[in-house]
């Protein structure tokens, strides 16, 4: 099923292997102790494991049997460093409910901090400035980031990283900017302030017009609104206070579905993806699931799908004659060939033979495959693009 909610994904995301990732259960962010020894993903040769249900299962191009052509100049540029050791602490409000923090400390820097600390512990702390602490997480050398549930929209947060001294004071090694989680509902503030901003005046011209009137920190629109209320002479007509029908904002919100807005908040990009995946699942026959039926409903139910395809490939000298399962095939100009087909349950024996262009020599190979699927109920075959049927099936 298309994955429409990030909430099903484990927020403490870096896992040690794709296999582990695939069986990860939904849980709160996990302590970094468990992954402290894991090689940083940015050092991986292969991409990080991602949302398995969203995989398209595209097979990578097969490795040709002929030597790789020389890579273009500067094709391989090395690897990014694991960290830069700048001691920056970054905090972002990912949404109204989750914060994300990363810190650019090297393994050694965190290790040193641990040793400096009387308790031997380094902490990431999240707090509301001027108020309470909401998270305290022990940070281990090698860890880099954390996803933190806060579930507090429209609230200011800050992060700090450091350790406690003997006297109980906190020694800061890094501190983040203050960040605000976004609102998750309409503002209770119903104040209505109108302003006229003529489109044919540039912002620069408007700022010049009121340069002497604008107050420190006051935005252009705010200043214009204030001056217009005061009847300040401006070289363009502006509207007097406009009357908004009483209760209009509530009626508009109701018209838009009230609280439903939150449930149907699916961006067009996601709609594209949903559309694409649904089409795949329905064998190119369907349409996207109703936005109003709620991506938090059925789409998040547990599911599994598996399938297999088979790619046979190889090469010989150009001009040779090659048969696959008794049928002569065309070689590419460089003498290579490949077959890509579905691989359903069954037993397959595929003889492949090549004879030299002059017919003097022969080589042959027999490839045998067995696929047996034994699945628990509720496992569906992954949809595949239309592919040729397999050859050499014997059972």
């Amino acid at each position, binding site marked *: 099923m298309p994955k429409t*909610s990030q909430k099903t994904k484990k*927020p403490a*995301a*870096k896992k040690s292997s794709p296999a582990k990732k695939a069986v990860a259960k939904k849980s709160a962010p996990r302590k970094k102790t468990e992954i402290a020894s894991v090689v940083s*993903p940015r050092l991986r040769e*292969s991409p990080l494991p*991602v*949302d*398995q249900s969203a*995989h*398209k299962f*595209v097979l990578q*191009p*097969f490795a040709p049997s002929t030597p790789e052509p020389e890579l273009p100049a*500067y*094709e391989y540029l090395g690897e*990014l460093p694991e960290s830069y050791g700048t001691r920056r602490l*970054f905090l972002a*409000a990912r*949404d109204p409910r989750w914060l*994300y923090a*990363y810190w650019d400390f090297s393994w050694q820097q965190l290790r040193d901090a641990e040793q400096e600390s009387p308790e031997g512990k380094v902490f990431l702390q999240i707090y509301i400035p001027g108020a309470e602490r909401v998270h305290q997480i022990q940070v281990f050398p090698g860890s*880099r980031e954390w996803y933190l549930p806060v579930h507090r929209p429209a609230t200011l947060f800050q992060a700090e990283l450091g350790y406690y001294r003997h006297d109980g004071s906190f020694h800061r090694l890094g501190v983040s900017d203050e960040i605000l989680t976004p*609102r998750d*509902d*309409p*503002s209770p503030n119903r104040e209505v302030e109108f*302003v006229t*901003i003529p489109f044919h005046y540039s912002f620069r011209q408007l700022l010049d017009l009121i340069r002497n009137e604008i107050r420190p920190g*006051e935005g252009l629109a705010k200043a214009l609104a204030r001056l217009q209320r005061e009847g300040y002479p401006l070289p363009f007509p*502006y509207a007097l206070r406009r009357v908004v*029908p009483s209760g*209009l*904002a509530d009626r*508009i*919100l109701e018209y838009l*579905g009230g609280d439903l*807005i*939150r449930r*149907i*908040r*699916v*961006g*067009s*990009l*996601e*709609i*594209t*993806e949903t559309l*694409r995946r649904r089409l*795949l699942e329905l*064998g*190119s*026959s369907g349409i*996207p699931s109703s936005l*109003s039926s709620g991506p938090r409903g059925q789409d998040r139910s547990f599911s599994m799908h598996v399938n297999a395809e088979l790619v046979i490939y190889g090469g010989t000298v150009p001009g040779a004659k090659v048969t696959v399962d008794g049928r002569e095939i*065309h070689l590419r100009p460089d003498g290579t060939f490949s*077959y890509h087909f579905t691989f359903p349950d069954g037993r397959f024996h595929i003889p492949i033979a090549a004879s030299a262009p002059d017919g003097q020599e022969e080589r042959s190979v027999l490839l045998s495959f067995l696929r047996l699927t034994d699945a628990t109920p509720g496992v569906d075959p992954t949809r595949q693009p*239309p*592919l040729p049927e397999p050859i050499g099936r014997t059972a």
Partner: protein
Amino acid sequence: MPLGYVAPILHAHLPFVRHPEYPEFLEEDWFYEAITETYLPLLDMMEGLVRDGVPFRLTMSLTPPLCAMMRDPMLQERYVHGLEKLLELIGKELERTRHDPVFHELARFYHDRLHQCRQMFCDRYRRDLVGAFRKFQDAGVLEIITCGATHGFLPLMREFPQAVRAQIQVARNDYRNCFGRDPRGIWLPECAYYPGVENYLQEAEIRWFILDAHGVLYAEPRPAYGVFAPVFTQAGPAAFGRDIESSKQVWSAEEGYPGDGDYRDFYRDCGFDLEYDYIRPYIQPNGMRKFTGLKYYRITGKTPHKEPYRPWVARERAAAHAGNFMFNREKQIEHLRREMGVEPIVVCPYDAELYGHWWYEGPMFLDYLFRKTAYDQKTFEMITPSEFLGRHNTHQIATPSASSWGNEGHWSVWLEGSNAWIYPHLHMATVRMIELAGRFHQTQPHQLRDRALRQAARELLLAQSSDWAFIMKTGTMVPYAVKRTKDHLLRFNRLYDQILADRVDESFLGNCEWRNPIFLDLDWRVYA
């Protein structure tokens, strides 16, 4: 006077994908497919509307990377080459299907379409799609807006004002080069907004931007007219909110137009359906099958069995759907006008590539929608946001809520397990670029160093493209997105080291410039 307005907005964007180092590159196909299936059909639609004197208004973002690709001679040449190959294939298809009237007719249909594409691209527009779109802007029927320079996700660079400013200013300058005037509107990349972005827009004289519905509905204070009127941010630029109902009507299961059984099926493609040896010259050089764009089946229904596509029936469905869409907007606007007492504006933003590429009949739908709106009703008018702000210049002041149009409405698509690893590197490169600009912006010009600084800024901008994080999240083509992110960052880092050491390796720099020739006159001092 109309009772209200509808503003259709198409966001045309592709990441900058151009690989001169390889003779063919699969990911470049995104661009070639979009030309054939989206950009040329939209241009053709506008040609027809102008020719027939149909009054219409359309707003489109053409992002700087897309414009750079449209203007790139190598990609133009490769597109024409690919088109020639497809024409060769369709020639064979005419022969192969000659005894099957149904499929022969379809082959003829594609034959005509592809010839039309070649005629438009080569003869009518002389390969200049930017110029082709510009013509309609100059004619007053199309408003072209800009975007972030490389579609960078602005909220995750907010700590670095220079980086946000660079995304906006470089885009604005590029727009001037392409369209000979300043942009008045912007599609914030991924519609991602945080309070404060408007200050950078004000600097660039950008008058308005678009947000997803909740960005406006949850503004502070609560907007009295919901998403049916823009709000002015405190700095001056106006925010327009996306209408939910019209989005749903295009995409939902009950009314969703693109899933109609008579429409063309995206997945049944000759590249996968036809016998391997026959199709081999038209798929990937490594022998992997790929989409060719020749698709002979319709969606049919919820069944693996597919019936042949019938273009004329699909056209009738597109017309019916356009009529349905128009009717719903009429009812919506009548209701809103009664409630609001002023003319509502219904803003309908979509990915441009949904029209034509995913939904093959999408441009046809739009064509009918414009024609029907002009002649079959009087309730509303089509309008661009700039035109609307010209007619209606008094609005409420409010600060929108941080939001994006991605899943869940905030940052979770671009900041999650698969892609969060990129941000420490992007931020470090940003810090370094600011450091370089600060150090050198007042020094004497130095030709080689200036080139290196410019290229460093290009590499940083390209690494910031939100497309890479999006691809990592969605799980298709992931290795490519990972490699692009790393390569740009590694190139940046190498240039940074060389600039600081005053040892710019000209052959390396030349190679970078050769690979990524975007923003040719980029002013790196924007980071100072």
